[in-house]
């Protein structure tokens, strides 16, 4: 299931990033790059630091060392608001949806950076506010159609089954029209059918919108199938980096997964 778009120059570069919490070293001197329009997978055994890596990229955690370069701008740490404004969107391992709101409202929050009217205009529901709301509603409905969740738009998110919640979270990320999409285990807890649907959506996003995708995934079949390049982390360090086939055959990677002492 390889897609055929042109993979461009590196749009996101991670250099020498180290992160620790108290005494725990989550990441140690990790460096890799992500090219525009590609699908990059980050894999590794549990506790390898994969989620922490995503959190560093979009500014939720601040690394003690290292730099991130995104779209040419280099920083020693990202601020999550800036990351969102610059075009990075993400989903979370444990679903970070707003449980008190409906599906539609949740996805609409993804548009918040694009909304310009202030609260006064919105309270009075005058021209600009009304127009803006309806315009963004249109955009959101496009995403809803794309991910085939029309039938649940008015359902409170807390009532949905896990698989659908994950899809709604993806919708919210897509609503922001991001350039880079960070997906943290988007297929976790899904059955075969749901995984196939999700793969299809991810590839469609990459295909139709050219969005660069960085995803963490445990299912090797999925990783091999849809990614262009793979980074392998173990105990916070990078142990391999290359094409899926290249990485699959790497002895270090096999050892890491089989738990060989090192």
């Amino acid at each position: 299931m390889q897609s055929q778009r042109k993979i461009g120059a590196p749009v996101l570069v991670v250099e020498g990033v180290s992160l620790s919490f108290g005494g725990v070293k989550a990441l140690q001197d990790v460096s890799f790059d992500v090219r525009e329009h590609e699908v990059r997978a980050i894999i590794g055994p549990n506790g390898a630091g994969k989620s922490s890596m995503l959190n560093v990229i979009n500014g939720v955690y601040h690394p003690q060392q290292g730099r991130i370069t995104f779209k040419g701008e280099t920083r020693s740490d990202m601020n999550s608001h800036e990351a969102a404004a610059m075009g990075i969107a993400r989903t979370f391992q444990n679903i970070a949806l707003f449980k008190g709101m409906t599906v539609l409202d949740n996805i609409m929050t993804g548009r918040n950076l694009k909304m310009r009217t202030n609260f006064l205009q919105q309270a009075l529901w005058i021209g600009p506010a009304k127009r803006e709301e309806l315009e963004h509603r249109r955009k959101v409905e496009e995403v809803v159609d794309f991910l085939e969740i029309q039938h649940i738009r008015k359902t409170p998110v807390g009532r949905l089954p896990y698989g659908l919640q994950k899809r709604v979270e993806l919708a919210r990320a897509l609503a922001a029209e991001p350039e880079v999409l960070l997906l943290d285990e988007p297929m976790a807890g899904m059955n075969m059918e749901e995984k196939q649907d999700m793969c299809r959506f991810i590839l469609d996003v990459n295909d139709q919108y050219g969005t660069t995708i960085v995803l963490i995934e445990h299912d090797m079949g999925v990783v091999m199938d849809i990614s262009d390049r793979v980074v392998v982390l173990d105990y916070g360090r990078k142990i391999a980096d290359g094409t899926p086939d290249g990485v699959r055959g790497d002895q270090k990677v096999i050892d890491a997964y089989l738990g060989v002492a090192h």
Partner: protein
Amino acid sequence: MLYREAGQFKTSYAADQQIFPILQDRIGVIAVLVLAFVVVPLVADQYWLGAILTPFLIFSLAALGLNILTGYAGQLSLGTAAFMAVGAFMAYNVQLRIPGMPIIGSFILGGLCAAAVGIVFGLPSLRIKGFYLAVATLACQFFVLWALQRFGWFSNYSSSGVITAQKMVILGYELDSPQAKYLLTLFVVAGLALLAKNLVRSETGRAFMAVRDMDVAAGVIGIRLMHTKLLAFAISSFYCGVSGALYAFCYLGTVEPEAFNLDLSFRVLFMIIIGGVGSILGSFLGAGFITLFPIFLSVLSQTISHATGMEISHAIVSNLELIIFGALIIFFLIVEPHGLARLWQIGKEKLRLWPFPH
């Protein structure tokens, strides 16, 4: 049968965005508005207007304010009465010191002062949450009352900080009858309720709810937490401030800082718990309940007194009131945490099917 939505299709997003998309709802709301604006002033007596309906509206506004902050934005506040006090006293001072200021202007300025105080005491919310934040708002509650009593300027140097609200004149008409005060209050409350309804369905409302539900995630998708939280405090305090001003001008007439004590903050909190946290309608239902319930109890006790010949003292009634309030809070939290508003929604769902069972 009456409440069927079948056949009411929305063909545009604009139609879907209406406040009352269902025709029967619209008719119902218009009926209530006609009742409130036209029928009631004509038929209701002094007592009902002055002692029940006007305070009901005033408290609904305060509950609305607290609901915006606590129900929608998730910032627990126990300082509601303090914001009301600021609104009341500042409206009084504006009216006193700025000649020719229209009364609505005084209300608005009183509200804006309350909003400013709200922003200052909302600053801790940027670092703390939950009941720690509640403690910070308690600090506000105590401090504001102390300041209003301590600095004579607020009460124009009267003894014990008492202020007497000035007469209200709009376009040459003096508003001193219960009908006039009721209508002014109704006008203000209805207007602000409409604005609130629009606000909570807009991006600002969504930002509030996002911060309430999971603020870390909200920050990650680009919502500015500081801006959102402080805005919630500001708007909420504005509403409470205006409510306080109405409390002084259209209801009590004479107020002192003590009238805005912690007890009042708790009352308003109870209104939103019972009425429904995070619901505009709930603010009204809760306020109505808490305003009417003591009256209901005292009427009940009087009836029982007359029927059985036993004297039920006022103290007993007021203690019973405390007990029943407390028990109701607990009851609602256990059985229906979303309060009367949710019960109303459930009722409407049942009404959709009526007279069919399913």
